[in-house]
């Protein structure tokens, strides 16, 4: 009986030893294959926004026939500087602001880019905070780099109030807009670079308060296609 037990133990050790000896051989079996890895890199986009981009910038009242010389308010401080300041306007009248904004877009995205232009806030009275819908008052229309044949009655397109999340946007605080969904673009390009020139039209509300200043922030956003 004792011999039998010793024999059984010996057989068990032999089996374990055999398993231990063969296991590494299984682990070392190998095969070769290929792994395809794909990834996307985001495009590099840059653009400059130049207000009052050409000599002769400023506002003219909407009139047919011979056009008056443009004038501007004190905050349109020079070519390429300041804000788009219509200056003193009459309630109920329409004005064209020539050479208002130039967007120069550069990117490495061969597919091109989209330009979004929206108002961060409505037209706001800086004195009492009352507002007018921006889509009823401020319009944009294509212009030229160094020439401009638009009048105050040239057809424009309304700026829309953004549905994105706005940070800032008071008179002295430039806003940013965080988008979860982008609106329809105001322009697009199928090439990597581009220049866009815009005039603005302002339809002054007929019941706007005389003696007050009204303002709005327009935010331009450019993304790769």
């Amino acid at each position, binding site marked *: 009986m004792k011999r039998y037990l010793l024999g059984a133990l010996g057989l068990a050790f032999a089996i374990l030893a055999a398993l231990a000896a063969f296991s590494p051989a299984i682990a070392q079996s190998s095969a070769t294959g290929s792994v395809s890895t794909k990834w996307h890199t985001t495009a590099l986009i840059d*653009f400059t926004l130049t207000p009052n981009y050409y000599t002769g910038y400023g506002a003219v009242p909407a009139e047919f026939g011979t056009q008056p010389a443009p004038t501007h*308010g004190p905050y349109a401080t020079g070519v390429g500087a300041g*804000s788009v300041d219509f200056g003193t*306007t*009459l*309630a109920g009248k329409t004005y064209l602001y020539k050479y208002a904004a130039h967007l120069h877009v550069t990117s490495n995205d061969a597919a091109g880019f989209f330009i979004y232009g929206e108002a961060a806030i409505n037209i706001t009275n800086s004195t009492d905070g009352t507002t007018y819908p921006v889509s009823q008052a401020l319009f944009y229309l294509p212009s030229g780099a160094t020439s401009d044949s638009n009048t105050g009655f040239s*057809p424009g397109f309304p700026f829309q109030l953004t549905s994105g999340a706005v940070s800032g946007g008071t008179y002295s605080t430039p806003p940013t807009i965080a988008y979860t969904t982008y609106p329809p673009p105001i322009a697009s390009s199928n090439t990597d670079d581009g220049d866009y020139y815009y005039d603005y039209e302002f339809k002054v509300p007929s019941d706007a308060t005389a003696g007050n*200043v009204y303002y709005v922030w327009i935010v331009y956003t450019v993304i790769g296609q």
Partner: protein
Amino acid sequence: MKYFKLSLAAVGLLILSLVLLQPVKAGLSSQQAQIGVTIVVIVSPTPLAYNERSTTTVAQAPVITSSMSLDRATPALKHVFDAQSLQFEQTSSLVVAQVQHPLLVQAAVSPNPNATLLTSNNTEVVINASPGTTLQVPCAFTVTVSTTTSWSLDEGLTNDFSSSFPGKDLANNTYASTPLPTSTPYLVYADDGSAWSLLASGSKITTYCVTLTVTVPASVTAGTYSSNAIYTLFMS
């Protein structure tokens, strides 16, 4: 000779009367206010026809996409497949390169005694339409004349929407109380001799409802088109 002198005198009188009458006409009717309503037509792309899957596509061998993971492999296996055991997170959000710049627009307002003589409840109308269709927008906007002094009101469109989308494709049915039997195409200032058409005249405060009917030619490509409906008030 006598007849010649008489003829000269008649011509002189005619010219004099014309000269004298001109200021009288201006005095009777001078422009007091002018407003514009921007009409934006957004033309959608022509709908695409249903394209049934071809038999060629069906006959093709299906593409099977598979993936593998070595997360739970033994250390020895991980060692052997070290180069292939890279982990890539599934894309859960699209990262977009975005650049943003703001621009301040401002204006000071001064009094205008004529500001409320002629007003509209809506300074821009947006119409969505497809090529080859006709769309009507009942009472798209109103035009109100707020004076009891004798007045006349002109209307017209500044320009065509595009070379293939004439301004005359926009018609209006302008009425004070009851819609008119038919709509009338707008006169286009840029095409029709820089002239407006007379809409109405009177001496009472009146509000007009303007129902627009736009017919988009089938050849118009998708895009956003714009023109201005201009209303001009003349008063004695």
